[in-house]
């Protein structure tokens, strides 16, 4: 028996006897495969662009500051039409920034890919993978 065959047999035995290690290895390989997709690359690029876009950051700060300022009246349902319109204008101004649009689009594509991966994996194992990982609200 060659060393290579010994190693293969040892790995096969380990796979049977130590499934968590086997599963961890396969989970890491899946994560690595996801990082090689166009969706992941586009998301990373969009994330970095958004992080470095000062205009988008300023628009976000302006929106969040107004949101905080109006938090109490919004919760009480007592915000005026003008206050609501101003908040919506700031939200829209942030959403209209090119880097934000690109980021949200890349995030949606990555979410679609993740959902497809989850469907395939869930079909394979006969259990809803992502659904099982969500915190339950039913106690």
């Amino acid at each position, binding site marked *: 028996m060659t060393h290579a065959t010994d190693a293969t047999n040892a790995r096969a035995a380990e*796979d*049977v006897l130590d*499934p*968590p290690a*086997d*599963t*961890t*290895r*396969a*989970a*890491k*390989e*899946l*994560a*690595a*495969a*996801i*990082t*090689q*997709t166009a969706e*992941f690359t586009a998301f990373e690029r969009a994330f970095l662009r958004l992080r470095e876009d000062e205009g988008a950051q300023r628009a976000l700060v302006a929106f969040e500051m107004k949101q905080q300022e109006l938090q109490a009246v919004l919760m009480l349902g007592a915000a005026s039409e003008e206050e609501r319109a101003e908040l919506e204008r700031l939200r829209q101004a942030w959403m209209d920034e090119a880097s934000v649009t690109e980021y949200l689009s890349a995030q949606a594509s*990555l*979410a679609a*890919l*993740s*959902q*497809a*991966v*989850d469907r*395939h*994996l869930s079909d*394979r*194992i006969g*259990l809803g*993978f*992502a*659904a*099982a*990982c*969500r915190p*339950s*609200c*039913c106690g």
Partner: protein
Amino acid sequence: MPPELLRSIDALGDAIERSAPLSALRAAKTTLDMDAQACALLDELSTVELEVRRWQTEGALTKEHIDRYRAARERAMSHPTIIAFARAQQDATAFLPEVNEVISELLGWDFAQMAAPAGGCC
């Protein structure tokens, strides 16, 4: 989907299936399927559940219906084969977040959260 990604999903699916919690779940399911009494209790519970939903929709749900449902549920949930299957199912489901952690750690974001369809559980 890229072939390399499909191969990785299949490999992880195979590894999860070989894991102790999923093997135990398969064994518990086989035992359940072979237990005629347990299957009859689950069929009964399923029928009563459907009836209760129908009555609820029609606004005709009574205490008697709810008591009937509770009794069917109690009968099913106290059967040893069903208890064993429910435990195996819980263990298998509890194992999956550990796998998700490994994936998410390498990606830098929560894979399951990104993949989970919108909407609440109840």
